[in-house]
């Protein structure tokens, strides 16, 4: 098995975790609990009412950066994927970010005054970063995701509202596609500031924990972006096109 392994419905769920332990939080976001014995992916998904194809999309895209969903596998609803993405947002906001904040606070409190000032700078940097993340997430949840839901409903029902067509013309999904870059760059900067430039801190254990956490969050965030860009956006684009075609709007 390599990074190109394709997880399949008949594979044992436990093997997915053995194969890539970084998928643990992903399973968590689906609400899957452990103790799955030798059940296959399909059996576990059925037990939890999860769309098996969708689950496989997500773990494959997470596991292999170059994975590109095939047409056959794009067979799941927008509400599945949006629910998953919103879960991921909550996981960052309620679990990861507070954890990292605790580490930073501890570092700040346990450093001599001179270095404490430096950590305060990192703390401000991180807080600003979190503000940006919150803004980005709420923009997606309040504006982008509802728009996608509307597209989905229009396709399902065949009824297309006038406003929706206008929005497709003026503000298609492409507009929002590349907003993740900045979030990733900032996180990378934070890691580098700690690794290279923060004067040595006596509590090495704590610095290690913080760094490990930042690396993991980075993997999670990149994955989150990839799912939006490779799975969600292409699907929305093709729906946008077919709505325009049906409505007789050429573009």
């Amino acid at each position: 098995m390599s990074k190109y392994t394709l997880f399949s419905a008949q594979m044992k769920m436990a093997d997915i975790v053995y194969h890539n332990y970084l998928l643990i939080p992903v399973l968590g976001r689906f609400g899957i609990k452990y103790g799955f014995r030798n059940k296959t992916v399909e059996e576990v998904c059925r037990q939890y009412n999860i769309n098996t194809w969708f689950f496989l999309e997500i773990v494959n895209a997470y596991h292999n950066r170059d994975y590109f969903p095939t047409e056959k596998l794009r067979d799941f609803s927008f509400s599945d994927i949006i629910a998953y993405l919103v879960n991921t947002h909550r996981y960052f906001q309620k679990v990861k970010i507070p954890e990292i904040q605790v580490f930073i606070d501890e570092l700040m409190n346990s450093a001599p005054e001179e270095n404490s000032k430096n950590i305060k700078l990192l703390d401000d940097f991180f807080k600003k970063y979190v503000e940006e993340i919150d803004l980005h997430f709420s923009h997606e949840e309040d504006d982008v995701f509802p728009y996608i839901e509307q597209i989905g409903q229009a396709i399902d029902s065949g009824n297309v509202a006038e406003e929706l067509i206008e929005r497709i013309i003026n503000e298609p999904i492409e507009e929002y596609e590349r907003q993740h870059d900045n979030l990733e760059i900032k996180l990378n900067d934070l890691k580098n500031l700690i690794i290279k430039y923060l004067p040595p801190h006596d509590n090495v254990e704590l610095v290690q924990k913080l760094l490990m956490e930042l690396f993991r969050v980075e993997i999670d965030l990149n994955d989150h972006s990839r799912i939006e860009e490779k799975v969600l956006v292409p699907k929305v684009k093709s729906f946008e096109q077919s709505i325009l075609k049906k409505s007789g709007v050429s573009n």
Partner: protein
Amino acid sequence: MAYQIKKITVVIAVSQVLTRLGIKTFLSVIGIEPEYKELAHLDELDSVIPAGAKSYLIIEQSLLVKPESEYLKNISRKYGKSKILIIGNRVIENCPCSHFVLNSDNRQEILEKFQDFFSERDDTSTVNGAEDILSDRETEVLKEVARGLANKEIADKLYISINTVITHRKNITEKLGVKTVSALTVYALMNKLITPEEAIK
């Protein structure tokens, strides 16, 4: 942009010409090309050590006034920024310096000890890697970026073209490994290149 090594001063306080020559040969083998100050005894130490600068003192043990450890403590207090290496028959107890080349050492051991003496990180100095990594011009540009100036403003202030500013910024980012203005500002503050009052809020 070549990596600039600061010119260092090496003071050799050794009575025999032959030994002094040997030391210089060893240093050139390990790639050190300093400015040399040679003394045959320690009386003139004051006159050769540049005030406040960091220099490397290589001292023959037999020139030290007894008690040796007390005498060395005085020297290291006086020339706080300098590092001391002693050449002699034995390691001196309770001595403020930890570098000793012994007469019984073979070629390899001497080489390693000299390398160690010159390469060892100075843990007493404050964190200030900026001058080592960035050129003076890049440091200037970085300061202005951290103060919140736009490329055009930086170009006008430093009398260079916008393209030059952009090139400097690219090099700064490449060297430091941080891209965003806010992270560059954190770097500038950590290294005391600008004051907190000057930084972008």
